[in-house]
């Protein structure tokens, strides 16, 4: 018969129900005769069952900031692996501070998977749009000149705010510095024929060409112009009309 020392390692798989038949028999024979190991077995079973029952609640949860930082590592690794290859990627000359802020803020929507920065921006903006534009647009039309002045004073860089336009179907509602983008991105909120439409303005040239992204039931069009980057974003309906809005924005920012 095995002694106590031989039996000890067998107790864990025994408790788990994983022990090989011959090990199981050896443990059974031993505890029949040995009270110590019998008690040990009971103690181990209690500990194991307790951990098992609590396993979900025992884990400390990572903070959203840590999730964001880790998700950002995926973006960063990709930027290193496959840079310049894609024309629509943010150029490497983008001021890193701005890009990092956006990526970090974006990464809060961790788990969606991303591998290029245009997608990252689009995600980031979409999440902000859903949280922000729906609840923060004031009911009345806003004064673009006043909003632009307030923006420059607060943010330290000048912003052109395209006015409401009947032909484009746009009514300006507000301009926000969004928490989720760390206040670095101007968020212009319009009502577009009854639906919220966001225009984000980054104070840097972040993309080459024009990108269209469709994600999370929203679509966005992104381009850089005169050292700024613009993202027009709205819910997915009437996609064919969005070109008109983009055209209006392009010709009214400078």
């Amino acid at each position, binding site marked *: 018969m095995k002694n106590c020392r031989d039996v*000890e*390692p*067998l*107790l*864990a*798989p025994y*408790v*788990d129900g*994983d022990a090989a038949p011959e090990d199981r028999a050896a443990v059974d024979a031993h505890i029949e005769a040995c009270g110590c190991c019998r008690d*040990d077995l*009971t*103690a*181990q*079973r*209690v*500990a*194991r*069952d*307790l*951990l*098992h029952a*609590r*396993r979900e*609640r*025992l*884990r*400390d*949860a*990572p*903070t959203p900031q*840590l*999730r964001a*930082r*880790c*998700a950002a*590592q*995926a973006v*960063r*690794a*990709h930027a*290193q*692996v*496959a840079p310049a290859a894609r024309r629509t990627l943010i150029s490497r000359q983008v001021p890193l501070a701005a890009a990092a802020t956006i990526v970090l803020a974006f990464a809060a929507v*961790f*788990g*969606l*998977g*991303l*591998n*290029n920065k*245009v*997608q990252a921006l689009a995600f980031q903006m979409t999440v902000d749009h859903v949280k922000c534009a729906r609840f923060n647009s004031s009911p009345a039309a806003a004064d673009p000149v006043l909003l632009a002045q307030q923006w420059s004073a607060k943010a330290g860089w000048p912003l052109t705010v395209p006015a409401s336009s009947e032909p484009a179907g746009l009514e300006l509602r507000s301009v926000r510095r969004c928490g989720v983008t760390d206040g670095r991105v101007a968020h212009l909120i319009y009502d577009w024929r009854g639906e919220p439409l966001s225009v984000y303005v980054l104070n840097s040239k972040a993309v080459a060409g024009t990108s*269209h*992204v*469709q994600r999370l039931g929203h*679509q966005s069009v992104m381009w850089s112009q005169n050292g700024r980057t613009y993202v027009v974003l709205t819910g997915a309906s009437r*996609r064919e009309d969005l070109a008109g809005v983009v055209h209006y924005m392009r010709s009214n920012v400078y």
Partner: protein
Amino acid sequence: MTGGRPQDSMVFRRRSWAADQPAADGADPFAQEALSYIDSLYGTAMRLTRRVVDAEDLVQDTYVKAFRSASQFKRGTNLKAWLFTILHNTFLNMRRHDGRNPVDVDSDVVERAADMTASQHTPEQLLTRATLNADLQAALDQIPEAFRQAVWLRDVEEFSYAEIADMLEVPIGTVMSRISRGRRMLYERLAKTRMVG
């Protein structure tokens, strides 16, 4: 514009797993799956380091390494186990690096704990009375690292004995014995806590 594209999840399944071959719609299934284990990794890192700052560093370093060496991951093998192996090695490195000793209870405390008889409580009483997760965590944190780690990987993260042996690079018999002893130590800590309270 990309109308008529199949569902994202379908795209993922057909794509290469390699991180440098992103799916056309911008989603990276490798990173996505890797990031889905953050709760497990962080929970484990917290039990290993027992300090939030250290646990956060450990998890972030683990991801940095994982994403950099994504191409080395063999598709079809267990990604969670692979990440845990990186976590374990990073933890060892981290400790070696800053020369910090594990804050483990020294062995005589463990011995003394082992001397405590738990017989005043039936196991059932113990189970029902040890209601606080915080108590359980505290009891776990008091058992020596090697045992705590093995028990945690088995009972909380539900890795197999063979997976744990691979991860820690120790023989499977050692894993079994660490888990046996770790569970017993945990029981003893709990019994002691209850008697004190």
